[in-house]
């Protein structure tokens, strides 16, 4: 131990020997920092500046999403074919269980199209949330090595899911056509429905990204929450039929659920027998409202902890 204390003494001498500008000698570290415009390390930029930086990284976000999409199935032999196979197999399993075994299809016209639409739309939100939870924790190496607005991560990962959904939509259109639906003008409603849901998903992904960066337990917990969410969202049954005898507030609670809203809109757009009379009131207003509240709210919530994401 004695050697250590001796060197400490030497060290103090060595510090004094360093060339230091005489004009700055009397300044405290904080004053010195202020004089040369140094900022506290890792401080978070303002909202406007942050958004500007994020816009500057739009090519990065786009390329990152593209690279992630193409890397998704590189370890599987069938490769990109899984982009179509996964949603198809999912639909087949749910049809087997809920259509044939449990018979929740009673009273629903074109149950196959009804079910497949529900599953694909729910999966879009579900996988965005799952990707969001890992958005910060799963990219710590990148986040620590390079500096960019961290919101790029959840946004890019949600874009990956959007791209995946577009593949699923081709499957969905094929299924819908095979079950006897005829293309019509209402199919164009697919685009605003998807767009509002994508905004909603991005906001939600940013919220869970911040939560997931602090609470590592969330990755384990999330599947339970998402499964519960799926069962209350009317994916494999009709909320309207199920709640016929239930109290009114139960119906309202189930109808206001954002995923149920987006599923309703997609079914309304694609399936002829789903008419506006079966839609909950103000369904477009709630779709846009959810997108705005969660999209903007999620962005602000994520930005508030910007400086903490590398800490993991």
């Amino acid at each position: 131990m004695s050697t250590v204390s001796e060197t400490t003494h030497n060290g103090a001498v060595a510090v004094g020997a360093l060339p230091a500008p005489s004009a700055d000698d009397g300044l405290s570290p904080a004053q010195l920092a202020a004089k040369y415009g140094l900022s506290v390390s890792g401080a978070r930029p303002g909202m406007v500046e942050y958004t500007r930086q994020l816009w500057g990284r739009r090519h990065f976000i786009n390329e990152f999403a593209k690279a992630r999409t193409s890397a998704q199935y590189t370890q599987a032999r069938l490769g990109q074919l899984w982009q179509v196979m996964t949603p198809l197999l999912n639909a087949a399993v749910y049809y087997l269980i809920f259509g044939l075994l449990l018979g929740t299809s009673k009273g629903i016209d074109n149950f196959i199209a009804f079910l497949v639409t529900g599953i694909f739309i729910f999966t879009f939100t579900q996988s965005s949330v799952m990707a969001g939870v890992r958005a910060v924790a799963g990219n710590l190496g990148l986040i620590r090595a390079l500096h960019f607005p961290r919101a790029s991560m959840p946004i890019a990962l949600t874009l990956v899911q959007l791209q995946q959904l577009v593949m699923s939509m081709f499957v969905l259109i094929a299924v819908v056509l095979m079950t006897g639906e005829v293309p019509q003008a209402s199919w164009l409603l697919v685009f605003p429905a998807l767009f509002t849901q994508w905004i909603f998903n991005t906001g939600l992904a940013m919220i869970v990204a911040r939560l997931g960066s602090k609470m590592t337990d969330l990755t384990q917990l999330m599947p339970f929450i998402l499964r519960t969410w799926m069962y209350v969202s009317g994916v494999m049954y009709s909320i309207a039929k199920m709640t016929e005898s239930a109290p009114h507030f139960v119906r309202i609670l189930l109808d206001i659920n954002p995923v149920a809203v987006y599923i309703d809109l997609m079914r309304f757009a694609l399936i002829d027998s789903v008419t506006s009379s079966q839609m909950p009131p103000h369904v477009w207003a709630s779709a846009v409202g959810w997108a705005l509240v969660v999209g903007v709210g999620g962005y602000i919530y994520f930005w508030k902890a910007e400086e903490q994401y590398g800490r993991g």
Partner: protein
Amino acid sequence: MAVAEQQTLVSTPPTGTSIPTVIVDDVHIVYTVHGAGTGKGSATAALYRLLSRKGAPNVRRVHAVRGVSFTSYRGEAIGIIGSNGSGKSTLLKAIAGLLPADRGKVYTDGQPSLLGVNAALMNDLTGATNVILGGLAMGMSQEEVRRRYKGIVEFSGINEKGDFISLPMRTYSSGMAARLRFSIAAAKNHDVLMIDEALATGDHAFQKRSEARIRELRAEAGTVFLVSHNNKSIRDTCDRVLWIEKGELLMDGPTEEVVSAYEDDEQQPKPPK
């Protein structure tokens, strides 16, 4: 903002005037280590912990850095030495803003970049994609990335033994991965670049190239921090050295003086505890 600053930095020649880039003011860092000794636990255990609001078991606090203060200036290359676990990497993380200081403050000019051994980029993507994404993430334009792509790959030397740049990064050896990471990060002019033993895995030719690049970065008025256990590479690249032991700054001075003292200390038999 960073790009604009860089341009002005490059235009001002690094003369004798000392302009501070990093000011570390009496910084203390305390780590909170979760789950020391246990695994992540099952989903039900996680739910239980979340609901009961109990902390995770075995949370320990480690006082890793104890009151370090120094100021670095433009054009300096600063080596950081000390035995394993002395707090070198922790200090770099704090300067990069990745770890909050328990007490004290770190002021920096621009945003420091930290290159660590484990700073994996995107392992399941090819080296080529990593170069492009890394460049874009650092704020280069698409045009700039295209222009610099060849230079980055050449610098890394990844393609010296065949077309490896088109393979996923997970197939690289640790040395190759470290080389590519350094090449990507060094393609941009950083105000403050911190290298945490990332060069140790490179071969001799690459180490020479990276030392030359570090000198260039200094000439462009950046500050480079280098953590290394290789005293020779510290002597070759750095003009100032901080010696950290048990989280305290033992010595801060010209390279030769500090490294010699460090080597003398290493050779002495440790007193029994």
